[in-house]
Each structure stands twice: as C-alpha cells, then as structure tokens.
C-alpha cells in the first residue's frame, strides 16, 4: 500500500477482554474515558480464559462430578439411586450455552458503557501505537493516549509431550472432552491438574497424578493439602510424587520416579504444569517495555509500566488469578485517568476446587513469622462441626493466623466444603484488621460451616465451645 499507515486515534486502548481487560474497560468508561477494547477472539471471546476455558467451565465440570459423586456417597444415608449416568456430550452443550450467555453479558456491559470492541490480535509498533490484525487479515492501527495490557496467559507444554488435542491435552482441551476417558494421566499436581483429576476421577476415569515435586499443590502451605491427598486416593486416584513424565508409548505414559521407570495407563494425558504470560508476541519492546525472562511486565504500584501503558493480570507478577486481575484493572484505569490509585491489597485469596476445597487468604504461620509478626494459630476441625457432619465431610479445618502484637487476623486458611466461599470472610477480616475477638464476637449462623471461623477465633482466645485446645499446625 502506498498510502501508509493511517492510525485511528483512540483515548484508552485495552488489550484483552478477560477479567482484567473488561474490568479495566468498564472502570475507565465510568471515569469518562473513550475506551476501545481489542480481543483476539472477538465478542465471543469476552471473559477470556476465565470465562471461556478456565474458572467457569471447570467449575461446571466439577459441579457435575460432585453431583454424581454425592449421589453415590449418600446411598447409605438413604438416597435411593440405581446408578448415575453422565454424558459429557450433554454437559458440553450445557457448558457452551452457559459460557456463551456469560460472554454476551460481558459484551452488553461493555457496550452499555460505550466501549468499542475490536476483533483482532494487537501488537505494539510504537510507544503510542498498536497494529491490530483482524480475522480477515487486514491490519488497522490505533494511536492511543493510554493503553492497558491484559492479554493473560496460556498453558505451558512439556518438551516430551507436546499438546496434540487428542492424546495430550491442555486444560482447555480437557474441559472440552465429550467422553470420560477410561484412564487419565494428569501431569502436574498444581491446582489445575488436581481440580481436573479429581473431577474426572469422580466421573469414572482411572486417574494417575504425576508430580515432579514431593507433594501436591506445591504453591499452597503443606499443612492444607493432606485432606486433599487423602480424598484423591480414596477416590481411587494414584498419586506419583517425585516423578516426571517422559513420553507416550501406545496406551501408556512412561514416567520416571523414585522406584525407577513405570508405565501408566493413559487413554488421555492432561499436562498442567504451569502457565506462561502472553507477552511474547505483543511487540512490547517497540512500546519501550522490557519483559523479564519470566515473560512478566514490571509495573509500579499504580500498575503502570510506562507513563502511557499499564499492565494487569497474568502478564504482571503475582498469582495468575482472575480476581487479582480484576482488582488490578480498576487501579490501572484509575491511575491512567489521573486518580491516585494503587494496588495495595493486603491479601489475595486463593481458592482451589479440589475435594475438599481449599480457601486460603493472607499469611501462613511461617510467613507471618518471617514478616516479623508474632503469630498465634488456631485450627477448628471440621469434625467438630455439626453441619459438616450432615455434608459427610469430616476431613478439614478452619485456621486463623493472628498477630499477637497487633491483635489482628493476618491469615485464614480453610480446608473443607465451600472453603472457596467461606474464605471471603477471612479476607474481610484481614483487610479491616479485625481482632480475633471481633470475629469471635460476630454472630455466625448455625448450623453452617461459616461457624468455623468464629470457633477458630474463640480457640485463639482460649475459650472454645466445641473443642478444647488449639492445635499446633500440622498436628493431628
């Protein structure tokens, strides 16, 4: 073309329509900005990995698997059932409608806010300009006042086990299965691997989990993971620690472990060994942004990488979690709009939808000690909760970590049913600097699992109702 590159002048450009990008766009629009959002999958891809192939579909699958499992578990409690049948084909149809509906909802929120959505892949070619390649292979240019990078992350492949969408699956392909495999090897016992492995075990697959480290959920405090491992094994899963996946051989996965090499039956293999930020194809150097060896963009407290460009979510440091991205997004939109804003959350909750669930927020006892605090800890066991009994859940606990010097809750760690819901109360206590006495004096409803938090606080205060002493962490 001889006419050169005509650039469309835009005010605030958001790259990515996931929980970071769409939240940034909406907040910026609320602040009066003219927002353009570029999403490589177009309007149908709004919501990003979280909504399309992550949080939401995996919870849908887990919900299905739990319903099937509970039906079996409740037989001796009086539930009559002549066997449960599961159709993943039906499931996929339902899940497709669910996710499409949610994506449409996000699209409505954006268009109501006046946000323009552009379908294409963006790449910086100057500090104030991006080129967007549209699906019909045209390139359009946008010159922006400000930009927010929210392009997310993607699964990492193993060299010996490249994703092929058939035998070797990433989490996205695993969530798209239309039949339960008879045998499944899960490589990587992080939260994605364990959530998928647990769900598929409940749906009837013979599951083997292969983990290179010596424990499951290596990013979580070890004392929280024992109930998860026990349950996984009770569901019939084989957990191979200190083992690495080598290669596929016919119907088997070859692994090397402490007892030498072994062959694991694996009609399918799910590789979930981590995620890598989508920053390599963005032309960030052209925008004056250096990306570290880890692919992460360095940002300040106000999420800005440069005067003009901010970055949020999986492309910056911290846990790759949707709610972190969303919180950072508001900060970025405000900072770029001249508001004094900073990402200064005291605690980012982590939730893992294993069985039992794990909800963890704030400091562990060790972290609190390392931070120079004076930690005191109490665990309230699930076994002492009547409500947990009705749910047939006995293995788990609610733990409070408090700083004795400042008399405040600094960590809440819950293992048990609905821990993902319950941990929000802990986050609130931490942000509001509640004293354990405040939590203990707050009436929690009976009979609920939420009482665990109050009971743990009472334990810390030395006046428990349903147990008589605090347990040292890790003690039985």
């Amino acid at each position, binding site marked *: 073309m001889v006419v050169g590159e005509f650039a469309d002048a835009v005010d605030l450009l958001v790259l990515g329509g996931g929980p970071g990008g769409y939240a940034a766009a909406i907040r910026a629009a609320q602040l009066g900005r003219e927002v353009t959002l570029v999403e490589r999958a177009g309007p149908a891809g709004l919501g990003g990995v979280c909504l399309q192939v992550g949080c939401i579909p995996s919870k849908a699958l887990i919900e299905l698997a739990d319903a099937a499992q509970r039906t079996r578990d409740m037989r001796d409690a009086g539930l009559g059932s002549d066997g449960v049948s599961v159709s993943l084909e039906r499931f996929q149809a339902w899940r497709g409608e669910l996710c499409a509906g949610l994506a449409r909802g996000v699209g409505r929120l954006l268009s109501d806010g006046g946000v323009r959505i552009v379908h294409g892949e963006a790449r910086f070619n100057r500090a104030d300009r991006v080129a967007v390649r549209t699906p019909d292979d045209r390139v359009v240019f946008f010159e922006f006042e400000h930009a927010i990078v929210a392009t997310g992350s993607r699964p990492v492949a193993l060299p010996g086990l490249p994703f092929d969408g058939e035998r070797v699956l990433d989490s996205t392909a695993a969530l798209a299965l239309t039949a339960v495999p008879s045998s499944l090897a899960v490589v990587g016992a992080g939260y994605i691997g364990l959530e998928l492995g647990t769900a598929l075990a409940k749906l009837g697959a013979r599951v083997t989990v292969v983990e290179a480290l010596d424990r499951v959920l290596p990013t979580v405090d070890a004392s929280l993971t024992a109930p998860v491992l026990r349950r996984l094994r009770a569901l019939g899963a084989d957990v191979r620690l200190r083992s690495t996946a080598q290669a596929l051989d016919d119907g088997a996965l070859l692994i090397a472990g402490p007892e030498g090499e072994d062959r694991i039956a694996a009609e399918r293999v799910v590789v979930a060994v981590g995620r890598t930020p989508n920053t390599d194809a963005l032309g960030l150097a052209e925008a004056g942004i250096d990306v570290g060896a880890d692919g992460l963009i360095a940002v300040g407290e106000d999420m800005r990488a440069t005067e003009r460009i901010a970055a949020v979510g999986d492309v910056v440091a911290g846990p790759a979690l949707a709610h972190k991205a969303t919180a950072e997004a508001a900060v970025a939109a405000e900072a770029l709009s001249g508001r*004094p804003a900073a990402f200064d*959350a005291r605690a980012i909750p982590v939730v893992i939808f294993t069985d039992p669930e794990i909800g963890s927020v704030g400091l562990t006892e060790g972290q609190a000690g390392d931070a120079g605090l*004076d930690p*005191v800890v109490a665990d309230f066991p699930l076994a002492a909760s009547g409500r947990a009994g009705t749910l047939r859940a006995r293995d788990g606990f609610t733990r409070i970590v408090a700083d004795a010097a400042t008399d*405040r809750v600094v960590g809440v760690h819950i293992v048990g049913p609905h821990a993902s819901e319950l941990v929000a109360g802990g986050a609130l206590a931490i942000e509001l600097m509640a004293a354990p006495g405040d939590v203990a004096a707050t009436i929690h409803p009976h009979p609920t699992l939420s009482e665990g938090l109050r009971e743990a606080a009472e334990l810390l205060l030395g006046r428990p*109702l349903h147990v008589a*002493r605090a347990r040292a962490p890790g003690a039985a």
Partner: protein
Amino acid sequence: MAALEFRLPDVGEGIATAEIVAWQVAEGDRVREHQDLVEIQTDKATVVIPCPANGVITRLCGTPGDTLDVGTVLAVIEAEGGAVAPGAPGNGARDGAAGADAPRDARAAAAPAPRAGLPLAAPTTRRLARELGVALEDVAGSGPHGRIVREDVERAAAAGAAPVSPAPAAPAPAAPRAAPAAGEVVPLRGVRRTIAHALTRAWLEVPRIIDYREVDATALQRARASLRQRALDRGDEALARALTPTPLVVRAAVLAARDHPYVNASIDLEREEITLHGHYHVGIATSGPDGLTVPVVHDADRRSLAEIALEIAELAQVARERRLRPEQLAGPTITVNNFGSLGTWLGTPIVRPPEVVNLGVGAIRDRVVAVDGAAVVRPTLVLSVAGDHRVLDGDTLGAFVNQVAALLESPVLLFEDLR
C-alpha cells in the same frame, strides 16, 4: 485431703455418651486444677476435659476406646485443699501459642527485624491517604495497636499541609499527592475558588506587617486547665471540650482591641476612609472539608468566655458539616487564626480586607527560655499578628500585641470585667 469422684460432665447439645480418646495423666500423677485430664470424643466434637482440682489421681475409669455415659465416674482424685491455684494454666490456644512463641522470640532477638509490615489501615483509609497525599508510614494510628483510622489521615493531611497563610487545612485538590498524573487539571470550584480569589486580592492589596511575639503560656495553660476542670465538675463536658486556647485568645483580642480601636477597623481607599467599628465581630479561621472558612462570633465583647467557647465549637462543627448559614459568615471586624492546633508554631497570617488585623496563634510548646538569668523550660506560644500597614504602623500594631500578650500571660485579667 478428700477423695473426689469426677464424673463425665455434660458436654452439651444433648450428648449422652462420649468415647475416651486418650488420658493425659496417669494414676498416681499429681495434678493441678485445669490441667488436661482426658481427651474425649463425642458425636459433636473432640473435647479435652480439665482436672477439676489439685490433687493426686488415684483411679482412672476406662481405657481409650471405651464409651462412657454422661454422669459416670471418669476419675478419682485425692484432692488437696480446695482453693484454685491462681495462675493455673488454662487449656486455651494462648498456652499453645506461648509455647510455640519461645523459639520465634529467640529468632527475633537474633535478627532484630523491625515490626515489619504494612501500615495498619483499612482499604478506604488507604485510599483516602493516597487522595490526600499522606504517607501512611508516617502516620501514628490512634486506633488499637496503632491502627490508622480516617481521622488520623485527615489530621495528618491538615498538619502536613499546614500553610503559612490563614488557610489552616488545605483541601484535597491543593494537597500534594503521592503520584499526580502528569498534567492533571483540577478545576477551581466552590470554596476553593472563593479562597483563591479573596486571597489573591488580599495579597495584592494589603501592605502587610507582622508582629511576632513570644508568650509565656504557663499561666494560660493553668487557667485553661482550671476552667476545664470546673466545667467537668459541673458535668458540662461540652464546655470542657470547647475550652481550647482559642476562646481565651478571642477574649484577649477583644479586650485589647477596645483599647486600640484602629485594629478593629476597616479601610476604604476609594473613599479614603477608615471606619472604627466599635462592635467586635471576631472571625474564626476554621478548616472545613472544602477548605478554609471564617465563621464569625458576633459581639464577642458582650459574651462570656463560656459563650464564646461554645459558639466557636458550634461554628466549627457546622463548618465541618457544610451547614454554615450566611449570617454566620457575615461582618467580621477582626480575625483570629489558631493554627497552633495543627502543630504550626509560627505562621504568617494574611489580612483579609477590609479588616486590618489577623491574629495568628502558634502551638503551645515547651521551650527553653531565660527567666531571671537562668534557662528554664516553659510552655510557650508565638503570636504572629498581621496588620494592614495602611491603617496600622509598627507601633500601633505593637501596642495592641503588647496588650494581648500581657492578657495571655496574666489570664486573670481576661476576667477583669465579666459580663
């Protein structure tokens, strides 16, 4: 000594039986009250039951795995005395925590780390601090264990922005910020606009002189304390709270102004006239949420000290709530500005025309001063009294300040003519 049969207590919620999990003591052990005796398990919970008394265990009834009914004998204790040993350990979490703390304390001693961490402030308080440009690390929290509350941040913002002008608390838009966006434009609106225009005019129009005067506040402090105590004795807490130094200064200013009529005056250069007011409407510089306002105590010369104090408190409250009525702002003849409450020890007030005096009061601080040739420590405040040189000269202004200082150093004279 008496044999005490200790029975399995009712552990509540209709529990009728419990299983022995583990004995924490053995027959023949000497035990103390509250010491852990046995761990039992019910349908509801695992419970550690403490010893009911000091003594010696003579019999344990049952072995782990046995199920007992509530009310059956659990243990027999040869009890000694009956008194509870004070300080007997409880069986709560604190004990375990204290035990676990020991090595941690040792580690802390080995590597003394500062009480790490982030300022103790809730999210909205942190946001407010950012908006006001306050570094939370520098704020002493007034809440439990140093928790920083909104009011601490607002105070810090006011103190940090304590200006040398009569604007005691610069409002948010003018306050320095942690990281303002480049080229950010904040429109001048409302109170801020009024302040900006009025003070520009004042600065350009008034040839200002300032008399700085150090005042020994020993007697003033004592007088104020006595007045407060008297108010408290009468149960008048509102008055006790209202008795800040400001009403005393207002009264001193009014009494002195009666003897120096040119300080309570106004000038009109166009008509080439000075008006001696003869009534004493004292403007009180007051920080409000939107900026400086100067509500007025009218006819302060005809009010008792208590009335002045209560009215100033009332005006400050109303100003904070943005409820000042026009008549409460009308017709000041002289202004008093106690920026000492912000921590400022010396200010440079700006005269607000057509008034001709703005009397600034600094913070009362202990200072080393010379008394009879010796260095002694005295509570001291500094008056900075700005005057309009068109009306007042150094000597006329100084004479007024002399009298104000004398009244504050001998506050009994403030009550020379009670009304």
